[in-house]
């Protein structure tokens, strides 16, 4: 899933300051899973903003609504019925959600309430970690299911740097060295020989592409 965290309330207040009728728009998918922009968080943020406005004597209407997915047009279209009531949307979607809503409503300013962070896993309650940078050519097979592009701070493809100590990464001792994990896993499967070959430089054109990447699948088109 995509993870995100709410921006500081003061930053949000500054961005919405010019507007009087605001829709706080939550998203029920990834950002709900990471407790940043789901129904609950949207209600809490809207009420905190209303409270702050009241204390400061500001006349502003802040209403809330959460849709299933801000990043999928089908779910955004029905907002058309209510959009005329608002002069701005405060989106608690990820960066993709914010932009999908903005694309659909070109006349309405759409303001991000979250900082979108990474593609990752929920490890435990209140604990998320990054595990994939979406390189466009997955190499997990070779590395025993541990992604060095994401989990090694230096993106090394040919083994651990000289700072790997006691299984910890030299960059942040709270983080396991990805290469120690790779070696441990592959040796468990008797597949350490996968690491004897030299992996060539990564083809970053599959990630960087020519500007934003897209997927077009005719079999999926009506």
């Amino acid at each position, binding site marked *: 899933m995509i993870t995100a965290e709410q921006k500081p309330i003061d930053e949000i207040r500054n961005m919405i300051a010019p507007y009087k009728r605001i829709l706080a728009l939550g998203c029920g998918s990834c950002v709900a899973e990471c407790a940043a922009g789901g129904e609950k968080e949207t209600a809490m943020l809207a009420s905190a903003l209303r409270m702050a406005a009241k204390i400061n004597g500001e006349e502003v209407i802040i209403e809330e609504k959460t849709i299933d997915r801000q990043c999928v047009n089908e779910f955004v279209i029905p907002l058309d019925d209510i959009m005329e009531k608002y002069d701005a949307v405060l989106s608690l979607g990820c960066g993709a959600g914010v932009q999908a809503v903005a694309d659909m409503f070109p006349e309405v300013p759409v303001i991000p309430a979250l900082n979108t962070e990474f593609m990752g896993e929920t490890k435990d309650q209140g604990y998320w970690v990054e595990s994939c940078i979406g390189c466009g050519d997955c190499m997990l097979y070779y590395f025993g299911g541990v992604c060095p592009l994401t989990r090694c*701070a*230096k*993106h*090394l*493809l*040919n*083994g*651990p*740097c*000289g*700072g*790997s*100590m*006691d*299984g910890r990464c*030299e*960059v*942040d001792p709270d983080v396991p*060295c990805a*290469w*120690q994990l790779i*070696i441990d896993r592959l040796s468990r499967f008797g597949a*350490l020989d996968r*690491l*004897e070959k*030299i*992996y*060539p*430089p*990564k083809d*970053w054109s599959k990630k960087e592409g020519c500007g934003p990447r897209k997927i077009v699948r005719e079999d999926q088109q009506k």
Partner: protein
Amino acid sequence: MNNVSRLKKVLENGEFAVTAECGPPRGADPESVVKKAKLLKNNVDSVNVTDNQTAIVRMSSLAACALIQGMGLDSVLQMVVRDRNRIALQSDILGASALGIRNLLCLSGDHQSFGNQGQAKGVFDLDSIQFVRVAKNMRDEKVILGGDPLSSPPDMFIGATANPFADPIQFRAVRLAKKIEAGADFIQTQCIYNLDRFETWLNMLRERGLTEKTFILGGVTPLKSPGMAKYMNNKVAGIDVPEELIKRMEGVPKDKQRKEGINICVETILRLKEMPGVKGVHIMAIEWEEAVGEIVERSGLLPRPSFD
């Protein structure tokens, strides 16, 4: 320019090589490079110039190497993959060769979060092993990455680093084998304090026949104080200073500690000279280039061979 790598000549002649490190200044003054190089001249075969070490902005290693070459010394250009993508790395190899620089040391580099540019975007487009291979293909196959031909190949003696003290130990020999396969002509190691562990590592290399396939230069750094010894042991990833050395440094009065640091360094070099498979020493006297002459002399490594 027709010069050849002095380091390569020394090693190929079977002499025990001596290199030393020189960190460029945090400013634009050429004098500070010249001053350091003067201290090293005639004491070492080649001067390694670090590339924005610990991710702190300094004069570029390429420029500092050019200054050093201009003084008639041989230099080793260190290049990290942290700051440059494959386009810039290959371009700088060509530029370095054109300036007469004949040795290249390929490293990953300290992560950008360690230095004074914590907000920088780390590049890491190639890793150090891929970089060695790219450099070798440029020199030997006369092509850049992707296969396009060069109008004229760079002339470089190519090196890489190894840390005998990092984990996982069982993989260290595999990784070194990969560096050699990629094209590392010589290897400079992390600073050695724990000679037992170093020998364990060396034995692993000998078992794989690796000490015959590349020139291994053992790294040493003279300690200045017990504080430095503790700091390196606890704070610098990949450095192992045994307790008895820390005690030894603590056991001498303050004004004799630097002397003791040099003593330890000389003893280490004397041991390294006896180890089959070690072909030289790399002295990293951090901001203490004055110590290098004494260390080299007391290690019985003077005068340096001459080829004129």
